[in-house]
Each structure stands twice: as C-alpha cells, then as structure tokens.
C-alpha cells in the first residue's frame, strides 16, 4: 500500500540490488589493509637487522606505542579524555616486577598477570568515569593515578617505595629465548606483543562494537537513541584498554629488570596524550607513529639539552595545539554554515 511497508519481494528490484552490492563494497573497503600498515610492520622487523645497535630505543618505542594504542581505544574511539592512564601502566609494571621477584621468572605469564590485574582496576574504576563532563573525567582519572602513585610510594615493604623494585631477573621468554645484552630478543618480544594487540584492536575498530564507540564519541545523545548502551560499552573498552596498558607496563619492567615509581608519574600520562596527538587519534596507528616521533624527538632533545628537554617538549605541545586549531578552523570553512557553528560550539 505504500513504499516503505512493501516487503522484501517487492524490494529486490534493480536499484535496491545495486545499493546492496555497493554497500557491501563500501563495508569491505572500510577494513581493507592499508599500505602504511604493511610498511610499519616490515620496517619494524627490518630494524632488527638494519639497526642492531638501536634496539633498546626501538624497544622503548614499541612499549610506548602499545601504551598509546591502549589510550587510543579510550580517547580516539570512545572520546574519553584521561589524564591518568599511567595508573594502569604502572600497576602492570609493578605486577610484572612482583611476579618475577616472588613467583615465576617466565615473562609471558607475568605479562598476562599484569594485564589481568590492570584490567580489573580498569573495570572497577570505569564506573567512576561514566558520568560527568570532560573536566570531572580528567580529575577522576588524574586522582586515581595519583592515588596509585601514593600507594606505590607508601607500601615500601612491597614495592620498594621511592627506591623502586629491583633485584629480580626475568627468565627466558617461554623458557627458550633469553633476554640478551643487545636487547634483540627483548625487542622481538615487545614487537610481537604490540603486533598482537594492534591486530586485536584493529578487529575491534571495524566491529559493530567499534562503530558504537565512535557513535558514543560523536554524539552520545543520538547513540542512546539508536539503542547503544553507552555505559556498558565504555566499561568494556576502558577495561580492555587497561589490560593493554598494564601489558605495556609489564614489558617495560621485563625489558629493564627494574620498576621505579616513575611508571606512575603524571608526566607519563601527559606524554602519552602528546604521543596520540602527534600521531592522530582514532585509527590505532596514530599511537605507533606518535610513539616513533615522540621517542626520537625526546632522545634527540635529551642529547642536545640534557637537563631542559622538557622545555622543548612543552613548546612543541603548545605550538601543536595552536597550529592544530588553525587547521581545524580552515577545515570548518568548507562545511555549510550551519555545521561550522555546531562544530565550533562543541
């Protein structure tokens, strides 16, 4: 009787059929593997042979990249600004250290344990960030990280306090691959973990779950109105991100055989935001590119001005925000008037 209530039989006319095949193509194109993705992994593997003396800094990059991919799930997908992601990184680092010290020297077990414990903390604290504005979320996440740092500092009998936790040796990976002096196996280990986590995050990004996260970020009110249970999704992604952040912390412990309270420091959370902003949020590889640029930059600065590199990092942050804003503003000029106002008001 009318166009929309017509059932499937009447619908399979030519235009609908074309639409369906085009839609299928669009959807497949969404998650095709991009050229740069292959390039990243080839370069990462090639580095083992090309730059065998730089493996320590490459390991550092891989760990930071993993940490950044974790935050990207929270920030780039769900749109939650966190100033305390180091809480999970630090907890993972300490768990891995304590595992190696008291229970088992094999690192993969420690890695999984660290991820699980951090994930539990992420799950428990995720309920604190469900409500409120950006500002309350910032403060809550910051507060949690500061509390963790305070706990680590005060429970010296367990964590070594300000002196840090050391005196443990990390055993061979899977009982076979020793951590060597050049950091070769350590790098490969970190790279494998980074690769696996990135692939998991990638699947997530193109799943209905990932789409719903971006919907929550883009327009939380409408997301509710198409049936997205936002709270549950945020709890899930925040917990998962905490698992990955904890694993990143564990990798740091295991490759350096030491944990200092620095793993929970504020600057770690702030640096991480900077990494993501350099690389771009919401497409996972931003974390990896950002980690590469940030680590090389920091390394170079700390050679040029050993004591004052922080100044230049700060300057870059400020410059980035100010120019980024301009770029965004030019962007908006291309949109119809109605939308530019809406974007600016956000």
């Amino acid at each position, binding site marked *: 009787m009318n166009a929309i209530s017509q059932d499937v039989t009447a619908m399979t006319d030519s235009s609908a059929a074309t639409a369906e095949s085009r839609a299928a193509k669009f959807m497949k194109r969404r998650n095709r593997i991009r050229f740069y993705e292959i390039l990243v992994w080839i370069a990462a593997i090639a580095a083992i042979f090309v730059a065998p003396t730089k493996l320590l800094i490459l390991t550092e990059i891989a760990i930071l990249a993993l940490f950044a991919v974790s935050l990207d799930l929270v920030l780039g997908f769900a749109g939650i600004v966190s100033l305390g992601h180091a809480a999970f990184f630090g907890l993972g680092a300490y768990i891995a250290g304590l595992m190696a010290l008291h229970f088992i020297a094999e690192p993969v077990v420690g890695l999984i344990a660290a991820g699980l414990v951090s994930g539990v903390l992420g799950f428990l604290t995720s309920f604190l960030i469900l409500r409120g504005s950006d500002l309350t979320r910032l403060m809550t996440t910051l507060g949690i990280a500061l509390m963790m740092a305070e706990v680590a500092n005060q429970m010296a009998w367990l964590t070594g306090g300000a002196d840090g936790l050391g005196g443990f040796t990390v055993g061979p990976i899977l009982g076979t691959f020793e951590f060597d002096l050049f950091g070769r196996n350590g790098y490969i280990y970190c790279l494998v973990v980074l690769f696996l986590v990135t692939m998991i995050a990638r699947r997530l990004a193109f799943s209905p779950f990932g789409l719903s996260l971006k919907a929550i970020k883009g*327009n939380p009110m409408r997301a509710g109105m198409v049936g997205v249970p936002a709270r549950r999704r945020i709890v899930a992604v925040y917990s998962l991100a905490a698992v990955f952040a904890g694993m990143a912390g564990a990798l740091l412990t295991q490759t350096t055989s030491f944990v200092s309270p620095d793993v929970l420091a504020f600057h770690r959370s702030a640096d991480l935001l900077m990494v993501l902003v350099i690389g771009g949020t919401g497409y996972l590889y931003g974390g990896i590119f950002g980690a590469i640029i940030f680590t090389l930059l920091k390394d170079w600065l700390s050679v040029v001005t050993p004591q004052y590199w922080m100044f230049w990092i700060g300057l870059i942050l400020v410059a980035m925000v100010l120019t980024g804003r301009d770029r965004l503003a030019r962007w908006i000029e291309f949109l119809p008037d109605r939308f530019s106002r809406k974007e600016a008001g956000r």
Partner: protein
Amino acid sequence: MTGIVLETKGLKRRFGAFLATNDVNLKVERGARHALIGPNGAGKTTLINLLTGVLPPSEGKVFLEGEDITSLASFRRVKRGLTRTFQINQLFTDFTPLETVALAIAEREGIGHNLWRSIAGYGAVVDEAAALLDRFGLASVMGERTAILPYGKQRLLEIALAFASKPRVLLLDEPAAGVPEDERHEVLAIVSDLPSDVTVVLIEHDMELVFSFASRISVLVAGAIFTEGTVREISADPRVKAVYLGENA
C-alpha cells in the same frame, strides 16, 4: 488491534522556576497519526525529550504499551520500540550514511557488543542498511561523510536512522524543519508513506502538512495540553486560531 500505545500521566518538567511541561496527560492510540502542535516555546520538544528519556521528568509517569518506562534509559526505550528524530539533526557527522544506519540495525539485532567480527561480515545487516537507504533516496550518497551531505539529505538520514530501529512508535520532531523548498517534497513524501502499523507522533508547524497527515491533534500551549481532537474539530476551533494568531501578532 487498537488501544493506547503511548501514555503520560501527570507529566511535569521544571527548569528552575519555569514549568516547561505542565501536567500533561497524553494518550496516543496504536497506529495513530498524532500531531502535536502549538506556538513556539509551548514545550513540544521538551515533551518529546521526556517521552524518549533524553530528560527525566520532575513529576509524572510515561507508559509504553501499558508498561511504566519513566525510569528507563533512552536505549532501553529504543529496544522496546520507541524512537524519535530530532528537530536539529543529531547525526554522527564523521560516519557515512551506510555506517550510521548499519549501526542502528546492528544494535537492534543485538550484535552491537560484538567486538571480534567486522560489520562487513554481517551480510544481512549491510543488505538491510542498503535497502533502507535506497528507499529513503540516500543510496547514491551512502559512502559520503554525513557532514558534507546537503541538508535535505541529512534530514532524510535523520528519519532513516530512526526507522532503522524498527520502531513501533516513532516521534518526529519537525521533520521538514530547515529543509529548502526544492528538497522538501522528498521529506514529506517519506513521512506520509510511513507504514501504517507504526504509530507516529508528529511535531510540525506547517498546518497544511498537519491537516493532511494527522488523524488526531493535540494543541500544546505553555507546557499544558490546551485542547485535543480530530483534524476537523481542531481546524474549526477558533481558540486554536487565536493561539497561533496571538503568537504572530
């Protein structure tokens, strides 16, 4: 099957000292074409916000098919078949129309929590999304970023998105608002072609559209229901004219 599908009892909403919704008792019959009219600031959009859980009411209750849904979150109301469009587009501007509609279908089908399988792997969802976009005249732009679509197309997507949830009750908040004249007929055709088993509540200022579309009309003035009746009754009611003329004067 007839009966009351959507009902409010003593619904009130205050903003500070301002009473935006004042003791509204609304009954919407199954399959009705129910128009909600009233001058600007009468509280029409506030009422829709209360019905859909965007705002909590200060007092009173909302019932869907006889069940109390007052304290349910928006997404739960959507799952029960109550959804809406917005007066000002509330779209996912970074999404394509295809992604937008596919998301709503995925959530409706209860696969939104799946984080392992790509959407492309759900052939039925993609096909349905494509068919829906085709019916709403959006097939040609399904792969574009929503933000760059012409306003009329965005308006259609706004309705298509609500429709993707397969609502039993659909609340349309000024569907043709802001649409340029030459794209307007497209939106209106879609609205008047909505399937008859879907109950539609329509907010609209265009009286011509209201009178041709609606089976029943409620007039809202200053947050309260001023009068209610059939199209014939309302169009003949001199008080309703006065309310509108008073606004224009």
